[in-house]
């Protein structure tokens, strides 16, 4: 699949740099503390332009999930089926992230199941955030 690259305007550079350091960060307003993801240049709550990044635990829960069977991209022809999860991060205002759930692709994933971020380094020099089920 295509590799992620920070936008030229720099809006999300810290997110991808942090991932390389195996840290998960989301945007947090320096004025009112509101969490925000994906990033934006302004806080949607208090409208300050002073927004920063905040490291989170990487623990979350499965908000929704799907099993993909049809390869929409040539690179996925041998990868189907695979699981996509939408993960909510309770320690970051329930912002959500999208990733793959590692493990058995035939799993019936329980809604709200606890998951943990896994940092997947790629030889091209970028790191993806994946997820695995945990007991907590």
């Amino acid at each position: 699949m295509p590799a992620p690259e920070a936008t030229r305007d720099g809006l999300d550079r810290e997110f991808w740099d942090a991932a390389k350091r195996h840290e998960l960060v989301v945007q947090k307003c320096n004025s009112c503390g509101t969490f925000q993801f994906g990033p934006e240049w302004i806080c949607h709550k208090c409208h300050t332009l002073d927004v920063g990044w905040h490291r989170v635990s990487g623990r979350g829960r499965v908000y929704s999930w799907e099993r993909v069977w049809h390869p929409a991209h040539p690179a996925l022809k041998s990868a189907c089926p695979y699981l996509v999860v939408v993960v909510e991060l309770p320690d970051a205002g329930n912002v959500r992230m999208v990733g793959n759930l590692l493990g058995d692709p035939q799993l019936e994933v329980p809604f709200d199941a606890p998951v943990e971020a896994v940092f997947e380094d790629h030889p091209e020099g970028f790191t993806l955030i994946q997820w695995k089920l945990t007991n907590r």
Partner: protein
Amino acid sequence: MGEFTIKDKVAIAGLGETQYYKRGAAPVSEFRLALEAIQRAADDAGIPVTAIDGIASYSNDRNDSVRVATALGLPELRFTNMFWGGGGGGGSGAIGNAAAAIVAGFATCVVVYRALAQGQFGRFGATPPVRTISGPIAYTWPYGMSTPAQWIALRTRRFMHDHHITQDPLAAIAMACYHHAQSNPRAIMYGRPLTRQAYDESRWIVEPFHLYDCCLENDGAAAVIVTSAERARDLKQRPAYVMASAQGSDFRQGATAENGPDYATSNFKTLAPRLYAMAGIEPKDVDVAQVYENFTGAVMTSIVEHGFCHPDEVMEFCTFENLTAPNGRLPINTSGGNLAECYMHGLELIIEAARQVRGTSTCQVKDAEISMVVSGPMVAPVSDLILRR
């Protein structure tokens, strides 16, 4: 609504369609298809094409308004408008914008069109083989989450979980569309009925969507002539009066990486009340609805958000019997819609809604007075429309 309303001031007076083709099968260029559909719509209304003085479209239609006006020799172009956003979200909104232009006096006769030739320009459902990506899609594409089917499946799935919904309503919606297409010789799926067994046995695209839960991709063009109610009354066809149109999006529905706060929504929770308020009617007054099917799950949530049933009543309401003409409680997509007639980004749904008001549908709902269109569910922005006889 006070004086600021388009209610009953404007009508759909002409309908035009080219033949609908399988994806990539159009024998002529997309721009020529657009011109043919516009000419047919003008002929249907009984006006010369040069009477058109306004142009509106949506979904970044490639067929530029000034090129159209130039090609057709329009003497005076007074209004050009493009509804923001992709997919089918702007279909009803383009009619609403045309109506607004007429009520405001910007134009007198607006054509709304949409043309697609995917052989010429590439597909919607495939992800281009690029090496790198950035911005919002960088949070989803690298994980193989890159198509509308995949993001709408995630929302549908959460809605089904929250309200204890099985595959049955999705199957019923697909089968209703295919059933209606069997009476419509223009439909791509005419002569190809869908059984529940064939639905269940069809391959998964992305759970919970089987192949038959997903819209077609087609070539062709459609066009609609919108003019004042007063003028429409003197033209060739029975007018389909515009009672109301609404457009827009709910709170932060554009948040990237699946962060719309209200997640499992078709994005009509703020629009539907505005639509009904402008029309001055309630859901029970609607005789027939054309609900944009990108995927069946979004039809289901649109039916709920337009007040036809409570989320916990979906299993009882969204049945084949209830969704089919002529006797269902809410017949939907009576030409076959995006699933079985043609994927013309939902402009074919608006044409069918007007046909129901005219009494000329191939699956006519008896004495249909009030005809609804829902455009673009689970995208942002979205729009909707109510027509009346």
